């Protein structure tokens, strides 16, 4: 316990300037369900710090442990090992009703026997706030989520989007230090979902509350977050701003999970502090960026995003060459599916312009130019 606290405090200080304590820190948290052979390790030694006032997203495939991490922060589960810290204070032992953290549940979990107003005021009432304060705060929340007209409605008479707003208002009303949102938009249709994404982001800015948002939709994660943690199999694989996660994925899983990408086997020929050079299968050598971690010269996997490559008919000087197999038009973009020598698939994405450009035919042998800084060496 004492050790976990020390580690946690160190982790809490790790980000931001000195004295800037992390809003939430998970310090070496392991969570196992069941025991023995049929025990499930839902979280495997997870350490992460979430900054104050941040829109932080947990992104990962189904079953990777996102909900479990949220439930540990909220206090619905206790960690098997490690501790959870809130503003530097260990809270792992506190029951949920003593943690200044609120949750927006995936199923909303609105109280069906209460009106919209009563739902929103519930948390404040439980905190023992005077009636007048509860009432005025409920008013403010109703206005914030634009539900004033429906204050007296029963919650089972609301649409999905309206229920979503009430759930949000109910969780925000007690002014928690951290708001946890477990896939809150997954039950909404696409249009409403886009609206709510903007609204959520706006609310986060307005309230200044730290949001921890769970999703398995990578686009949602990239558009809304200040920082994203990509999870798989109970582990956090990479934490960073959307741009960094997208442009510099740490490993194969992250590269694959976020956006489309091309994988090539290459040889790392030289290493420097900030990067290195690799020799591609075509024999050409290019400068590369390296993911965090230890690297040594030799065989590595590199990734190149489809939009960081360009096709040209002059194939003598380009980094790579390939045979065009397929052209897929998707409105804004066109995807060119090529095969490199050795039968490696490679995709090039080009934005469609009005004054359209050269036209390529299936079977053409083409050159592929790669933008500077677009080749990234993966960790694995």
């Amino acid at each position, binding site marked *: 316990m004492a050790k976990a606290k020390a580690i946690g405090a160190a982790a809490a200080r790790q980000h931001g300037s000195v004295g800037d304590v992390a809003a939430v820190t998970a310090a070496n948290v392991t969570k196992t369900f069941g025991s023995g052979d049929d025990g499930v390790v839902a979280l495997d030694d997870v350490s992460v710090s979430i900054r104050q006032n941040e829109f932080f997203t947990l992104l990962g495939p189904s079953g990777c442990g996102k909900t479990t991490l949220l439930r540990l922060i909220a206090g619905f589960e206790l960690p098997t090992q490690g501790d959870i810290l809130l503003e530097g204070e260990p809270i792992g032992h506190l029951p*949920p009703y003593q943690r200044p953290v*609120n*949750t927006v549940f995936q199923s909303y*979990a609105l109280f069906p026997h209460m009106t919209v107003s009563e739902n929103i005021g519930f948390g404040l009432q439980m905190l023992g706030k005077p009636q007048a304060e509860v009432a005025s705060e409920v008013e403010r929340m109703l206005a914030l989520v634009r539900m004033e007209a429906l204050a007296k409605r029963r919650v089972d008479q609301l649409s999905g989007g309206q229920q979503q707003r009430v759930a949000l208002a109910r*969780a925000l009303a007690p002014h928690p230090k951290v708001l946890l949102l477990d896939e809150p938009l997954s039950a909404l249709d696409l249009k409403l979902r886009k609206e709510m994404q903007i609204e959520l982001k706006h609310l986060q800015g307005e309230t200044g509350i730290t949001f921890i948002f769970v999703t398995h939709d990578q686009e949602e994660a990239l558009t809304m977050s200040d920082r994203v943690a990509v999870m798989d199999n109970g582990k956090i694989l990479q934490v960073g701003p959307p741009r960094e996660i997208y442009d510099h994925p740490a490993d194969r899983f992250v590269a694959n999970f976020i956006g489309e990408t091309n994988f090539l086997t290459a040889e790392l020929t030289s290493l420097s502090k900030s990067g290195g050079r690799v020799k591609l299968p075509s024999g050409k050598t290019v400068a590369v960026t390296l993911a965090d971690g230890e690297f040594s010269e030799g065989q590595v996997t590199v990734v190149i995003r489809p939009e960081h490559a360009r096709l040209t008919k002059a194939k003598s000087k380009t980094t790579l060459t390939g045979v065009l197999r397929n052209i897929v038009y998707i409105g804004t973009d066109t995807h060119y599916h090529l095969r490199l020598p050795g039968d490696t698939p490679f995709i090039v994405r080009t934005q469609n312009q009005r004054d359209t450009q050269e036209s390529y035919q299936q079977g053409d042998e083409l050159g592929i130019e790669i933008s500077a800084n677009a080749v990234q060496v993966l960790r694995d």
Partner: protein
Amino acid sequence: MVDVAKLRQIAPPRRPFSIRSLPGFTAIAIVCFVLLYAPLLPLVVYSFNAGTSLAFWEGFSLRWYVAAWENDSVQDATILSLIIAVTAAVTATTLATMAALGTTRTKPYKGLTAIYAMINQPLMVPEIVTAVALLILFASIKAATNYHGLAYLIAAHTAFCIPFAYLPIRARLEGMDLSLETAAADLYATPWRTFRRVTLPLLWPGILAGAMLAFVISLDDVVITEFVKSAGQDTLPTYMLGQLRRAITPEVNAISSVLLAVSVVMVTIFFFLNRRMR
């Protein structure tokens, strides 16, 4: 051209399977209905007979209802029945609510099966066996303490009412979204306040339904009451049983009809509550 009408004739649209489409379903249903309800008809009809006969109709009158109403023994028995039924129903429902919470709102634990077996004892052990067992047990307690009061009847009624109260409450709890209680805890409600503000209000229809059922079950019990009661403690059913050994008058019909009406009303409310729960 395909003649659609003709095709339909050859292959009529298949209806999904329904038990009602089985041959003889309607006939069997009618027979059952008649067997169950036909005997009640003369009982109710002759409660309004002007004469003393249970076989000859001598005109309409409410005299037997008046007679029953003015009969001191009937009054005493009614009051005793109500005291026992209300006390037993309230106690049994309280215990059943706690039992239902203890068996659905906890992680599965060892001994859960034993608890189910205990709660459902009255449904599994023949009533006459329980009655004899209680007779022997209470007889020795009565001898030892010289207490002959109502507590024995109330305790016995409470015990056999528990499973009837338990089942609807448990059904309601199991149908309740667990995340509501989680949400309450998340919103700073202590376990007790979560129970008071969220669990209990949502559980009410189930509790009322359970209490209703327990009340009716207690009200019409004969076997256990007959074995457990001390001298002079007659409930309506045991009073009627005593009357049947003597001359039968339509007064018994009148009491039966009232009991029937009470049961029907209670069970109707029970079903109504049950339906609203969905």
